[in-house]
């Protein structure tokens, strides 16, 4: 495993609160290039907030997050440029409802990467093919199923050619029969060596794709380790309790 400083996400003692409600209470975590890290934990434990902090969609009050040697929350950091490195996909698909699948994917490359209309459109075709949506390329989000919308969101993030993917419970809002197609897309990404941080409740999926699993509890990473160890022989009582509840 390569351990160059320029190739990783470092989270150092990060604190974040909304008013009086402290959500992150000193998170420490390092994710190296090529790694797949799954974050598990109860709802409201701060997992999703952490993802938003990593690409500066939320501010932090204390600590540091460093992505490829860039201090994410430093004043001089251009957030929009930083976010090109960090693709993010949310639980609620968030497709742009007024644009077709093609336009959804092509918009950011055109505006942010300054691609020509034609280049952006080709890029969209390529990425929509990748997620298996070629036949829906000119459909509007309202004409797509939840699973298709989520794959669209993945294609949209990938079109920016990010170095990292942040996945925030991407299957939680889906009907059970649609979860598979989205997970298949993520498996494909893993095959290609994409670095991913995924907040998930899909324990079997985490077991299959994750290099490490981190259990989030009360605003900190309570326990972290390889899937085998984390899911079969967790050391801490809280982790055991959580796994007993959801497995």
């Amino acid at each position, binding site marked *: 495993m390569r351990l160059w400083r320029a190739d990783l996400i470092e989270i150092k003692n990060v604190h974040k609160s909304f008013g009086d409600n402290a959500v992150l209470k000193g998170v420490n975590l390092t994710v190296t290039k090529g790694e797949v890290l799954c974050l598990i934990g109860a709802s409201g434990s701060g997992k999703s907030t952490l993802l938003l902090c990593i690409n500066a*969609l939320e501010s932090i009050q204390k600590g540091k997050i460093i992505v490829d040697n860039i201090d994410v929350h430093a004043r001089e950091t251009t957030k*929009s440029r930083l*976010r090109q490195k960090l693709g993010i996909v949310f639980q609620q698909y*968030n497709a*742009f409802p007024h644009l077709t699948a093609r336009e959804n994917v092509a918009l*950011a490359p055109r*505006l*942010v990467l300054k691609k020509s209309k034609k280049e952006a459109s080709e890029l969209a075709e390529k990425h929509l093919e990748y997620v298996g949506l070629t036949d829906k390329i000119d*459909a509007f989000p309202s004409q797509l199923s939840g699973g298709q919308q989520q794959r669209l969101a993945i294609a949209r*993030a990938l079109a920016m050619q990010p170095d990292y993917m942040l996945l925030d419970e991407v299957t939680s809002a889906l009907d059970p029969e649609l979860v598979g197609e989205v997970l298949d897309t993520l498996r494909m990404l893993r095959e290609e060596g994409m670095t991913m941080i995924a907040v998930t409740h899909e324990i079997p999926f985490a077991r299959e794709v994750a290099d490490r699993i981190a259990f989030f509890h009360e605003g900190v990473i309570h326990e972290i380790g390889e899937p085998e160890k984390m899911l079969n022989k967790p050391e801490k009582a809280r982790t055991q309790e959580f796994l007993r509840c959801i497995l």
Partner: protein
Amino acid sequence: MYPYVTHFTTHDLIFMAQGAGITLVLTIVSGILGTILGFCIGWARSTRSLILFYIFGAYIDVIRSIPLIIQFVLFNSFMAIAGYPLNPFFSGLITLSIYISGYVAEVVKAGIESVPKTTKMAARGLGMTYLHEFFYIVLPIGTRTVFPSWIGLMLGLMKDTSLIAVLGATPPELLRSSQIIITRIQQPLLVLLGAGAFYFALCHMITQFSNLYEMRWREALEG
């Protein structure tokens, strides 16, 4: 001068049609000016600036709480007192634009706020800037949401243009030209029925135009 008669003539019809034309011009010009101004105010109020929020909040409050007819008279008189007497027609046009901007601002703000926070976050997550997000995501989505309310404002505005009569503005718009005819032929019911028909035709035109747009958007979304 045509001979003095006391029945409704073709001349009267043309006179009323011209009035309807003036009503339409007043509506379109003040509608455009008021929408531009209201858009800027609504946008400013949707930003995080508390100062802009409260200053323009007061502006909207004042405009929406005072009857338009009083605003016409006050604005026209104050301009004259301040040493800038305006042609009543222009004075009325400006008052109408300011008046409608207060309502448009609230509609614009509602449109901006109707776009889910997560959709905006998705745009930012792709590396878009605030302006990208605003013009390519928030504006198109918000416009579709509040377009019917905006059309409602424009219909109200069209009927409110008749109040410009208190300034004695010339050329007369539809209601004033009707009153002029009524004074001569003493047949208020007949003339007002005609005026009503003109107003209806104008409003119906706007409604049809808006339906066309809404249908096109719906078709685009539903295929």
